[in-house]
């Protein structure tokens, strides 16, 4: 059943891409989303983006997620002045945001329905894609407040450490699964941005 769903998804994505290819190239091709591509599990992240425990001093309680857009790191605050640090991919310039939200929903191998604004900008994207290894949302998704943004996995591990998304935060599938198991719905998420001049 799952396999069938995956195949359908990949097929739809592929069709979507073929049909919209001319427009896609006429527009700026988006190297961040590549629906249908199967994630390379053997991909080695640079040490900077590998999950690790680091010193982290904060007044936020353990269990809080702090996203540092400028650094391209996501911190999960731990007791004792430390945090688990994950490497992330963030929004392109103009697609970054900041604020305080909570995790409102969690999904494993989520389906992808790109929001209308995204379709408008990138008409070559599929209107719907079933969850699976070729899905740009990857292995897990955590919904941020009432926004269209998510913390999610990816089928493009090479985009970790870059700014390519439409405002979502992506982790490699192993990391997003690890984070998923550590944070419940209701977790506080603080998104920090670089100061403006």
């Amino acid at each position: 059943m799952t396999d069938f769903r995956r195949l359908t998804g990949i097929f739809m994505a592929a069709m979507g891409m073929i049909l919209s290819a001319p427009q896609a190239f006429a527009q700026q091709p988006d190297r961040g989303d590549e629906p249908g591509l199967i994630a390379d599990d053997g991909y080695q992240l640079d040490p900077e983006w590998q999950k690790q425990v680091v010193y982290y001093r904060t007044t936020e309680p353990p269990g809080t997620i702090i996203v540092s857009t400028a650094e391209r790191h996501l911190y999960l605050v731990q007791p004792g002045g430390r945090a688990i640090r994950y490497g992330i991919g963030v929004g392109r310039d103009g697609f970054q945001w900041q604020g305080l939200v909570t995790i409102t929903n969690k999904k494993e191998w989520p389906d992808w329905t790109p929001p209308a604004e995204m379709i408008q900008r990138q008409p070559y994207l599929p209107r719907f894609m079933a969850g699976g290894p070729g899905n740009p949302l990857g292995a897990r998704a955590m919904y941020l407040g009432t926004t269209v943004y998510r913390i999610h996995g990816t089928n493009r591990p090479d985009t970790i450490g870059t700014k390519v998304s439409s405002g979502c935060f992506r982790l490699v599938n192993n990391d997003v699964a690890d984070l998923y198991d550590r944070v419940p719905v209701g977790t506080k998420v603080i998104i920090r941005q670089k100061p403006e001049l």
Partner: protein
Amino acid sequence: MMRTFRGGLLIGLAVAVLVAVLATIYEFYDTRTLKRTVRRGEVLCGVNKGLPGFSIPDDKGNWSGFDVDFCRAVAAAIFNDPGKAKFVPLDASERFKELQSRKVDILSRNSTWSMKRELDYDLYFPAVAYYDGAGFMLPRSRNKETSLDLTGSKVCVQSGTTTALNVADYFRVNNMKYDEMKFDKLDDVVKAYDTGKCDTLSADVSQLYALRLNLSKPGDNMILPDMISKEPLAPVVRQRDDDWMMIVKWTLYAMINAEELGVTSENIDEALKSKKPEVMRLVGTEGNYGEQLGLTKDWAARIIRHVGNYGEMYDRNIGEKSKLKIPRGMNQLWNAGGVQYAPPMR
């Protein structure tokens, strides 16, 4: 007639000698480092002879490193030219005496700030450039998250170092058992660890990252985020030379504030047009802090343009863009998880 001419000659000679003597005495006793530096046309920096990431010359004699860059920042503030920093390699044993005897203007040489050093040598450590401390390296496969999990470990450490003492204190106060394996030479400590003779190696964290590079499989080893001692590394200047001390201190603080305000070597021209008061005071488009320091309005802009902000200096030499890849940790800004905190420039 002849007598008056000879007399005049003698008086002239006497005046010339007197001036020469006075000039020599003035040069020798003028303790104002800024004036001496400007007259000389360069800043003399006492640095480590070779410490990867902090201060090391390449085969052509070009210096690089965190400590080296800090000294270049001081030169940039004064001369608008980071190349006006001249590096004088100094041994650990002689460094404070050499600074005292004015062989160098500033010591930027991974030196731990301690009360005894300020008192014994009449020196002053203006501000902490890098928070270091003793820590632990261990194989990733041991899957530990904190040094409190190291009970029962065999710990490799260099004998005669403060690290050995700190390790002993740490295990004692936490009621943890351990076996100490001491070696006289650092190379032997590393070899013992690399061949599995001990479970963990202890040294200053900055050193652990450098040592890890030379292991047979660097990636299989991790450094715990804990520090069990305080080793605040700071530049050093002589006491009773406040003008110079202020320049060194605010050079570092300008770099830290620049990072906090988002001013970098890449956007400095944009920053000079900023209308944000804090940015304007930093880059000198408002206020006259530069002149008050004895420098120019744009002193801090010069630093940022030529050397960058604190984060840029860190990343390039010891951070993620360097070979060492030391996470920012305590050296992250105070509002981003660390303790680096610069007083405001207002």
